[in-house]
């Protein structure tokens, strides 16, 4: 029982990050029409930019300790938004009308470009990255109806969960109640219809890319203290983010968040059983196969509303 609680305490924040990653991937898939294989890699470059900015602030003696981190975060986020807009305007816009496959190939190519750039400009070394909330972990200890309980909760995970929650709620609000959110959903559902009401679909696509990559940078900054900073730091997160999006159903954006949480917890629950050690990823992908076979629209896909 204690092990299960501990698995949830570590798995939920981890899963929230997969979920945010998956949300951005599903957003680009639904609105801009491609599966972005370079999602985590562009964010990785932004994390490197964030780290360099921190080191620069510290090196110049302008800021100290945590102030440098918080001053560098906006730089990283903005660089993510800029990457998103540039990818859309310089690459995607030119091939959008050709075929979805060409967009897909470009994102695969970008993956290599971002990884190569990171190796070239920075280095393949692992560098440490500061936590948002440093300090000793929380320890919940006591005896209750469940018997002797002792659960450790990492302090930084509190920041992870709060940020994930705030982002999820604000994205839900954006999509549901704002004009641009409605335009993003409309563009994904019918691009010709969207243009018929005067929506500039090219502009919507740029906004979607900017939002999605910026979210991936947030994930990168939150996950960096654990993975440390290196060119493939977000490979696993991206893979499980795509998985979260599949699990949640690409047709429902917020399904990806739930999908992420399920994967995050599952990963840690599998850890409880020594016999399954090392099979976490295999089990998760087996789950995906089951979902694709039995409920290909995703387990959180809305029931109605799809009609030719």
């Amino acid at each position: 029982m204690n092990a299960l609680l501990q698995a949830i305490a570590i798995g939920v924040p981890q899963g929230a990050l997969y979920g945010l990653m998956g949300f951005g991937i599903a957003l680009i898939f639904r609105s801009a029409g491609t599966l972005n294989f370079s999602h985590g890699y562009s964010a990785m470059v932004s994390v490197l930019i964030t780290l360099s900015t921190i080191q620069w602030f510290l090196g110049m003696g302008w800021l100290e300790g945590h102030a440098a981190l918080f001053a560098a975060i906006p730089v990283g986020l903005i660089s993510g938004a800029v990457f998103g807009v540039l990818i859309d305007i310089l690459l995607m816009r030119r091939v959008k009308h050709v075929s979805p496959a060409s967009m897909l190939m470009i994102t695969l190519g970008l993956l290599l470009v971002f990884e190569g750039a990171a190796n070239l400009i920075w280095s393949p070394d692992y560098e440490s990255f500061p936590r948002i909330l440093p300090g000793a972990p929380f320890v919940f200890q006591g005896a209750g109806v469940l018997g002797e309980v002792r659960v450790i909760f990492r302090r930084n995970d509190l920041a992870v969960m709060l940020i994930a929650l705030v982002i999820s709620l604000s994205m839900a609000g954006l999509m549901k109640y704002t004009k641009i959110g409605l335009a993003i959903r409309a563009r994904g559902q019918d691009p010709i219809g969207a243009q018929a009401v005067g929506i500039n679909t090219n502009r919507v696509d740029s906004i979607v890319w900017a939002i999605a990559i910026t979210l991936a940078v947030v994930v990168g900054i939150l996950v960096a203290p654990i993975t440390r900073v290196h060119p493939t730091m977000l490979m696993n997160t991206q893979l499980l983010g795509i998985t979260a999006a599949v699990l949640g159903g690409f047709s429902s954006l917020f399904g990806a968040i739930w999908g992420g949480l399920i994967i995050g917890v599952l990963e840690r629950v599998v850890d409880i059983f020594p016999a399954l050690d090392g099979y976490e990823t295999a089990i998760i992908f087996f789950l995906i196969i089951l979902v694709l076979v039995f409920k290909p629209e995703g387990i959180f896909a809305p029931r109605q509303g799809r009609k030719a």
Partner: protein
Amino acid sequence: MLEVTDLAVSYGPIHAVKSISFTLGEGEIVSIIGANGAGKTSTLFGIMGIVRSRGSVRLRGEELRRKSSTEPTAKGMVLCPENRRIFPGLTVEENLRLGTFVRGNFSEMVKQVYSLFPILRERTRQLAGSLSGGEQQMLAVGRALVASPEVLLLDEPSLGLAPVLVDEMFRVLTNLRDRMSILLVEQNATKALTISDRAHVMQNGRIVHSGEAGAMLRDDKLRKAYLGM
């Protein structure tokens, strides 16, 4: 009202519209008729800036920039596209709200649309994808009308509708003529000519015949040659 001069639309090597010109007067209904693939929809997309086109499009004498559909729509030219193109995962009300994305007063115009198509009022919170075909077509026309167009471009409003609904749709369109000019693209030539003032026949990207709608209806030779009826 609307003046189209030397409009041409190409998709790579395919010339869908080959330099056509026509006008639409204040309060007029003008139809463009012709077979599948004649270039009718491409003409509308070109005018709206949905596809790239050459030539000049003037609304009330003012040249429209057609980099995207935003400016033509904002200036008062609104398209109701072929195949409805409503947003299936959004509610009826959200669909109508999007109709006023760049133009029109939603709270005021939505009342007019509901009085024109009362069935939509009962479906406000329903997802548009769950509507019947006829209701979806009404929603598509309603979504164009909430923008209070001065020029309404209608692409095949009768497509896939039961005959009784086609009559209903054309009755509604006739009633709109005192409020806006209408450019109607139709395969149902008889219906279109009945409510139009003038018409153009398109074939292979060109206008091959133009005339007064009533006269074209009576012209047997023309009907046999171009309209297959």
